[in-house]
C-alpha cells in the first residue's frame, strides 16, 4: 500500500496547526514552538519523498534544517530573555516598540 499521501497529509496538518499557533497565540515562547512544529512538518515531507523516491538528498536537507532550527532556537530564546528582562513580559501584544 502506498502510504506517501498519508505522510504528506499528516505533514500538511502539522504545518497548518503551526500557522494557526503563530497567528493566534500571544505567548512568544508558544509562537516559537509553533515555528518548530512547522519546521518539523517540512522535515517529514522531505524524509517521506526521500524514502519513496530513493534519493538521499532529502535526508541531507533535513540534517541542515535541524542545524538551522537549533541556531534559530538559541538566538530566538536569547532575544525573548533579553526582552523579558527589559519589559517583564513575554506577551507579543505588549512588545510594540518597533510598531509605527
Amino acid at each position, binding site marked *: 500500500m502506498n502510504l506517501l499521501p498519508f505522510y*504528506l497529509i*499528516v505533514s500538511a496538518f502539522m504545518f497548518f496547526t503551526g500557522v494557526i499557533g503563530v497567528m493566534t*497565540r500571544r505567548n512568544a*515562547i508558544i509562537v516559537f514552538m509553533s515555528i518548530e*512544529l512547522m519546521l518539523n512538518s517540512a522535515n517529514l515531507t522531505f524524509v517521506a519523498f526521500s524514502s519513496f523516491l*530513493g534519493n538521499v*538528498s532529502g535526508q541531507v536537507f533535513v540534517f541542515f534544517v535541524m542545524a538551522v532550527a537549533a541556531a534559530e532556537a538559541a538566538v530566538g530564546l536569547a532575544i525573548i530573555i*533579553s526582552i523579558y528582562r527589559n519589559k517583564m513580559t513575554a506577551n507579543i501584544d505588549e512588545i510594540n516598540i518597533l510598531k509605527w
Partner: protein
Amino acid sequence: MEVILFAVFASIAVVSSVLVVTRRNPVIAALCLILNFGSLAGMYLLLSAQFIAVVQIIVYAGAIMVLFLFVLMLLRPDMERSFFRHDPLFKWAAIIVSVFTFLLLVYAIILTTFNAPILANHAKTIEIGTVEAIGKELFSNFLLPFEAIGFVLLSATVGAMLLSKKKLD
C-alpha cells in the same frame, strides 16, 4: 504492520500538535511538543531513515526542548487568559484561512500522489537511510553547505551569548 504503526504514530503526532497550539500552560505545550517529536522519530524509522530518527531524538527532543523548558523556567510562565479574548475576529480569520488552505493542499496531494508508482524498492530505501550513505553525500556533494552550517552554528552561539548579556553596550 507498517500501516498500523503509521496510524498510531500519525494520530499521536496530530493530537499532540493540536495540544501544543491549544494548551494555555506553556509547560504542558512544551511536553506535548516533545511527544510530537517522538512520534515523528517513529515515522522516520518507518520510512527507514534511521540516522534522521536518532538525530531527531537527540537534537530536537533532547537539546532544543531542554532549551525551551529552561527558558520557561527562567521566565515566569504567565497563563494566557483565554483563547478568544482579544481580537476574536482576527483569530477566526486565521483559523478559517488555514483550514481552507489545508483542504486545498490535501486535495492537491490526493490528486497528484494517490496513484503515483513507488519509485524505490525496499532494499534501496533501507540503504539510503544509513549513516554511511548520508555521510558520503554530506562530504561529497554537500560539502560547501556543510561548512556553511558550521559558521551558522558558531554565529548563533556568539549571538545568543551576546544577546543574553545583562547590559548591551
